[in-house]
């Protein structure tokens, strides 16, 4: 039905049957559009509306302030600090996710005896509730009785327990690590699925052509993974960019604001400082940044179709 709708030369001279199909098509997507409007378009417009008011969150009362909130966004430090933090967090955790994810996918693609067990185990962090994961990691990171410090001291890498989540740059390293741990299984599964569809005889041909294992990775595996990696990177970048619960539970944005990403800033502004209007302005700013990723993603998926 979409084919008919997006095919102008044909629908222009459409037969009664084609018109009936088009009507049916509109009817079938109508519920989706309705729900979409209610849960996405309305809040979006509401946020833009709120962002030009100064609103006290508990009462939702306040006056029109024009562009004041946006002036604060552009001239104040908070937004730019959080944007910087968000980018560091996103790039850091995403890089680790991709490297670890592709690496493990390659390993699990080999014929190793524990393959099927490992394939199911690898999903564990992804399925684990964030609250549980954070509790476990907080315990591991704890500066007094944490297993991480204990291990590092036993190995002689450090001689004093480190304050992992309470000081910089350790806190950032900590959240990046936990984020990578939590989300790399997604990369593993997506890459593994693609790996299994690469024809074996490409590798055989490459072997005959004189390519060693490393050349085969660069010349065959990686180009074949290109399209799936682009989609994974864009999707994960969007998700990591707006990640909230993991960071909020792990550090709450601290120490001070050194791990306060844009999501945390918006939350803090809206429910900590009770400035709903300013929070709405921040979230509109955040949305504009994300729009860049969105456009890239849409372009990428369109190219493939």
């Amino acid at each position, binding site marked *: 039905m979409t084919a008919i709708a997006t095919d102008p030369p044909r629908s222009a001279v459409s037969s009664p049957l084609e018109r009936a199909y088009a009507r049916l098509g509109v009817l079938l997507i109508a519920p989706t559009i309705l729900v979409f409007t209610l849960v996405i378009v309305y809040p979006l417009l509401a946020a833009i509306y709120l962002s030009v008011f100064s609103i006290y969150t508990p009462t939702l009362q306040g006056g029109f302030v024009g562009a004041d909130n946006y002036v604060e966004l552009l001239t104040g430090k908070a937004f730019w600090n959080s944007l910087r933090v968000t980018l560091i967090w996103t790039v850091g955790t995403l890089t680790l996710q991709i490297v670890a994810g592709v690496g493990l996918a390659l390993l699990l693609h080999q014929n190793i005896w524990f393959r099927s067990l490992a394939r199911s185990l690898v999903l564990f962090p992804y399925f684990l509730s964030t609250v549980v994961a954070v509790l476990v990691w907080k315990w591991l990171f704890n500066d007094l009785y944490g297993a991480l410090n204990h291990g590092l001291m036993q190995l002689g890498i450090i001689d004093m327990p480190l304050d992992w989540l309470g000081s910089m740059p350790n806190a950032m390293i900590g959240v990046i690590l936990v984020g990578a741990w939590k989300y790399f299984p997604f990369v593993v599964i997506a890459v593994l699925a693609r790996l299994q569809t690469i*024809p074996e*005889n*490409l590798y*055989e*041909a*490459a*072997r*005959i*052509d*004189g*390519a*060693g294992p490393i*050349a085969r990775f660069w*010349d*065959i595996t990686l*180009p*074949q993974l*290109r399209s799936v990696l682009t989609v994974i990177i864009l999707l994960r970048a969007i998700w990591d960019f707006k990640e909230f619960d993991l960071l909020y539970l792990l550090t709450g944005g601290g120490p001070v604001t050194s791990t306060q990403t844009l999501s945390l800033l918006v939350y803090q502004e809206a429910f900590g400082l009770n400035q709903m209007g300013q929070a709405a302005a921040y979230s509109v700013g955040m949305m504009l940044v994300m729009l860049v990723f969105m456009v890239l993603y849409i372009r990428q998926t369109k190219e493939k179709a």
Partner: protein
Amino acid sequence: MANVIFKDVHKSFGSFVALEKLDLDIRDGEFVALLGPSGCGKSTTLRMLAGLDFPTSGEISIGGRVVNDLAPGKRDIAMVFQSYALYPHMTVGENIGYPLKKRGIKGAARAEAVQKAADLLQLGALLDRKPKQLSGGQQQRVALGRALVREPQVFLLDEPLSNLDAKLRSYMRAELIELHRRLGKTMVYVTHDQLEAMTMASRIAVMHGGHVQQFDTPDAIYNRPANRFVAGFIGTPPMNQVEGTVEGGDFVIAGHRVPIDRTAYSADLHDGPAVLGVRPEAISIGSGEGLPATVRLAENTGHETIVTLELPDKRRISARVEAARRLDVGQPVALRLDPAAIHLFEATENGARLNLDDTPASVIPMRST
């Protein structure tokens, strides 16, 4: 010097024996076809030669060097896969140049070699395309180009023409013959198409059930098949095989006697059960004296007619006659077999041929090497 020798090679996949006691001695510059039905182990043989599979036991050597422990890239071979296995993300030019790139040949030298291979295969205009944008025949030529570009010692081809239509296939057959003549390199060619094997190869290894049944020239394969399998596999329609008994100077089929010359057969031919083999073209259909039969089907292909005949005991055989010959279904006829064209086989399932003479029973045009 690039002869290829398989010495007592066995190959099992788990408990399944794919190849048993494989011995092949392929001479330098020879065009050898591995011919056999599906699953007989042709690809396995080729893959072991390429180094993609490993023999369970035995020795494979190329140019006098044992290659059992040599990586595929070090064997100085090139292979054309049945599915072409072109690198999808590389252009035609990059595909053809890849073996050179991996051997450290750079810049102008590589470009020149790629151009030469592309010209040879008329791919010059397609160098910047991706494999996806090519027809099957063009892809096949790219796969050949990638094999040719390096001038390896031995070419391995695994059913390279099987995905092409009949016309392109016969064109590519001629091209390959020409190419082999020009390069003079050893070629091992896997096919299940006897026409390809007969027309292209200087020698054919007929394989069946993991064994080489016969390794000989197309002429010998056709005219002196080593056993019942080869006799029944080669020829369209294949050689007729009729079970009967040898009684003195006669072969008895359903009570009728066909005279045979006992001196033309080995001492292993005893009175008793045996199998008579005769090619469809060595049967003449007439009336009066001879083996009685009834015409059941006459298929005119334009230049000849294939006649299906029923013997008195309901067994069917086929004969080849000129297209102009009129034969009616149900018509009783008498068959005469050319005594020089009678093959006798042991009466076992894949009985050996017992003829002594090495004179061809009929002659088909052959390509010389």
